[in-house]
């Protein structure tokens, strides 16, 4: 077995979750810079701060709003997610999030649910328009970039940190390079360890961010929290962004269709219906 290269690591809380960065042959200072990058971009993309760039877009509906290159890129990724999932991963989910009571950071507890407002989500292309440097949302609509942004950020950050790194932003991760032993980065998924090289992983679940009968994963076909028979899906795919999209789509498809979807779009997958058998 080849000798293990020394790994620099850094852990921090951001994006409402735990984040980790691991790198071979990089300085700790670089990883701290990575934390600041995550914090800065996270502050611009959160829907929980009235001053954020995303909140401005959600507030000024009906008008063309200037957006940064990063928000533009993530919005384009959201359209790609919409296409990959045949509309099941739809970032225009904010009205439903508010209706189920997810109006503030989960650590502050749920808000008041107003379920009578729930309805199927409109197609993303009907509510969000993009042009160079600007975006426009239809009145009454809103976007929550959620896991899409985390997956995209993990991919983007790993590309700037070096050739041999792992960026894990709340479970959405990308492993670049061949890792400390040269055979891949050991990443936990579904209770097992998999060696990832230039691959992403993500988990979608209805077990976390849950209150009463409600949870945060909205099924765009109903506008309600998803109930498909699957409780948690973890996926390895070509990037953190793709893993996030595939995991969420599989969970929303349910136990009958998820295996075939994962077979077509993922490199490894773990499907859990919550039963031990």
């Amino acid at each position, binding site marked *: 077995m080849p000798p293990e290269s020394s790994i620099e690591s850094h852990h921090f809380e951001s994006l409402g979750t735990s984040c980790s960065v691991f790198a071979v042959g990089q300085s700790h200072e670089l990883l701290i810079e990575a934390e600041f990058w995550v914090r800065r971009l996270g502050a611009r993309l959160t829907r929980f701060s009235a001053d954020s760039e995303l909140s401005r877009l959600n507030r000024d509906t009906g008008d063309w709003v200037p957006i940064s290159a990063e928000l533009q890129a993530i919005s384009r990724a959201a359209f790609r997610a919409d296409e990959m999932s045949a509309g099941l991963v739809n970032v225009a989910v904010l009205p439903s999030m508010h209706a189920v009571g997810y109006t503030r950071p989960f650590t502050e507890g749920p808000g008041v649910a107003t379920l009578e407002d729930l309805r199927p989500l409109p197609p993303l292309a009907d509510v969000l328009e993009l042009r160079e440097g600007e975006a426009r949302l239809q009145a009454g609509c809103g976007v929550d970039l959620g896991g899409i942004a985390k997956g995209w950020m993990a991919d983007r950050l790993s590309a700037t940190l070096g050739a041999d790194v792992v960026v894990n932003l709340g479970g959405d991760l990308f492993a670049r390079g061949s890792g400390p032993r040269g055979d891949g980065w050991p*990443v936990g*998924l579904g209770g097992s*360890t998999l060696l990832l090289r230039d*691959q992403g992983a993500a988990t979608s679940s209805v*077990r976390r961010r849950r209150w009463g009968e409600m949870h945060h994963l909205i099924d765009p076909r109903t506008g309600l929290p998803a109930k498909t028979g699957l409780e948690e899906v973890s996926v390895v795919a070509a990037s953190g962004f793709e893993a996030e999209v595939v995991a969420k789509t599989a969970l929303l498809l349910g136990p009958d269709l998820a295996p075939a979807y*994962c*077979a077509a779009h993922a490199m*490894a997958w*773990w499907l859990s219906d919550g039963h031990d058998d």
Partner: protein
Amino acid sequence: MRIFLLKTAATVLTMCTTVASAMFVTSHLKNPTAPLQPPVLTAGTVSSSAALGGTLTVGPSVQPSNAEPMTSTYAS
């Protein structure tokens, strides 16, 4: 007479083309190891196992390991 010859020639040409096409197709079967096949075609090489209250399926491009994971994907 000229029309009859033309019809005969067209018929012979059609039959020859059909036979040649059939021979070509049967001698060029799909190569399952050809590149750029969609991943679903390799589903037969995946391994599945029960793990932690679910089913883990691993494709050929991912290698399982007994090592301790450095980090994990999880729901947040």
